[in-house]
């Protein structure tokens, strides 16, 4: 008989990938895994991933990866359905875990922003704030980064499928930086590196390019932001405004970056 194959329902775990308010960078990280993407496709049934394929299998799903923050009334509703559809829900990237860059609006007036950017802002339906997924529903795991690290994503998926604990460290970027033997840009060049307060996971990408860490993986476990701030605003001549802006770049709305950035804002205003 000639080769007509009828797709059969497999018993592989089903994977869903969702997009909320985001730049798609984290989904691209998944697509950029190339060879490993095929491994993932071999191990799970990619059931819902609009950026990658048109075919959609119905819920429920075993693993849900959710990219993006909640910033519209529609998303606020949809996130609850996503939770109901997935056994394990994993928030991926700075937007989903902290509210992302777009959470800068949380300190401003959204209407003013909208009027500035869009010719017809009346068509815009948006919330006053951009918030992480965990502010709305329970999530099982968070992967930090803007964007996430492909290796970490693979580690979480492998761990989940093998039923083991994922090895995702919560210590500083400095640990990865030093393991790689990279010359410290803060000590040897006076660059304002946020590595000592930022969670590892990127493999010290930026110091590896001889530049300072921006903090895109968000706060490490118990960061001492004030101590680094003392060095940056003292010896390295940064202002309170600089500190505020550095802390608010990618994960500004996530504790304890948020209260620290608020404190630097207060100090900035005091100066005036």
């Amino acid at each position, binding site marked *: 008989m000639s080769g007509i194959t009828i797709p059969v329902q497999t018993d592989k775990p089903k994977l869903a990938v969702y997009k909320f308010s985001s730049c798609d960078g984290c989904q691209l990280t998944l697509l950029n895994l190339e060879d490993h993407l095929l491994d993932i496709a071999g191990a799970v049934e990619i059931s819902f991933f609009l950026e990658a394929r048109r075919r959609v299998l119905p819920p429920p799903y075993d693993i849900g990866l959710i990219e993006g923050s909640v910033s519209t009334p529609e998303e606020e509703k949809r996130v609850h359905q996503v939770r109901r559809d997935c056994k394990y829900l994993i928030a991926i990237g700075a937007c989903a875990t902290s509210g992302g860059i777009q959470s800068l609006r949380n300190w401003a007036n959204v209407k003013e922003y909208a009027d500035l950017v869009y010719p017809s802002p009346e068509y815009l339906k948006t919330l006053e704030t951009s918030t992480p997924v965990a502010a709305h529903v329970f999530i099982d795991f968070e992967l930090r980064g803007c964007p996430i690290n492909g290796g970490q994503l693979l580690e979480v998926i492998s761990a989940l499928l093998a039923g*083991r604990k994922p090895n995702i460290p919560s210590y500083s970027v400095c640990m990865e930086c030093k393991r790689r*033997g990279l010359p410290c840009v803060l000590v*040897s060049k006076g660059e304002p590196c946020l590595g000592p307060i930022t969670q590892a996971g990127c493999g010290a990408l930026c110091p590896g390019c001889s530049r300072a860490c921006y903090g895109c993986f968000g706060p490490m476990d118990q960061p001492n932001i004030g101590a*680094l701030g003392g060095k940056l605003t003292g010896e390295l001549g940064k202002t309170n405004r600089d500190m505020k802006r550095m802390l608010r770049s990618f994960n500004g709305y996530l504790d304890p970056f948020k209260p620290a950035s608020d404190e630097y804002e207060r100090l900035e205003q005091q100066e005036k």
Partner: protein
Amino acid sequence: MAGVDHGIRDVWFLSMQGLEHMVRTLRAKGYTVVAPTVRDRVITFDEIVSVDQIACGVRDEMGPGRYRLIDDPLSRVFNYVVGQDSPKRLFFPPKLELVALHVEGKRFVLDRTSPKPPKLAILGVRPCDLAAIRVQDRVFGYGDESAGHRCEADTYYNQARKQSLLIAANCTQPGATCFCDSMGTGPRAKEGYDLSMTELGGGFILRAGSDDGRAIVNELPVRDPSPSEIELGQLKTDQACERMGRQLDTDGLKELLDEQIDHPSWDEVAKRCMACSNCTMVCPTCFCSTVTDSDDLATGTASRTRRWESCFTHQFSYTTAGSVRSSQRARYRHWMRHKLGTWWDQFGSSGCVGCGRCITWCPVGIDITKQAAGLRDHEPVKRHAGTHHIERGVTI
């Protein structure tokens, strides 16, 4: 014994040009030669294939949390001290796959074991780092089987050490954070080297400390040093003792640390410490590691990897009841007490060799010598006589 000719000469003069011969000879003997190089304006140990890759014409300036390399055409070859990295990484790699295996039927099938270390010749090891290697020898069970305080042998470390050749460079220009003189480890190497060099104007006073070292010298264009050259070499390292950037009073320090566990200075340092782990990563004696297992989705191969760990991380002391050292205060105190105090109980020596790296490379410049001095507002009751013996047979 003075005046007796044993037929073995142990001191020579090697000209500047002779250094090139040395590198070539080492390579011809199958060594991977590692030496201080300049990487991104920091002195870094790296593999070299020719002598002109060795950092030269630069000097270093350092202080707490600050390091700068300055071009100085008048500088000789080893006119700088230690950089960020120590030879630790060469014997105890920061990341090492220990084993990889998969299941076939009911059996485990071995895919990989840990890699074989290269045969290393490390050129330009500073005396403090040489002492640190001897400290780690005990931690990783290398050398004399009968040595006290010796741990179980680590395979990679032992193999790497056994086939290594250590060529020390004595220090004539100590850095601003160096305090090897206080710890009895420098600025002149006393033991543990195959060859040692003291740089003078036109070359080096070369000494052999082992047969392997002597075998290398046999192939080099060396000559007898003049008495004045030997004296100058001595003078330069003697003077270096007087120009130490820092000092640490080790007298009774172990007891002091035991007694001062509630000293207010721990609270003060906890406000400044970020628990970023840089100090432990750069310390040439810190030996902690963590082992994690992972698996490959496609092949089903499970692998076990060892990585450098630090007592500053939350997970380091994590138990089912949470992290035992949950505060920055507890973690800093643990680190300092281990380096200067409890290391004695564990390994019979100090865990600090006075290289100063933890001061320079701490982003906020926390200074172990200052912290120790700060505890001295109270005299320790007991006296700890052993001050700086890195070798076994210590007096306590």
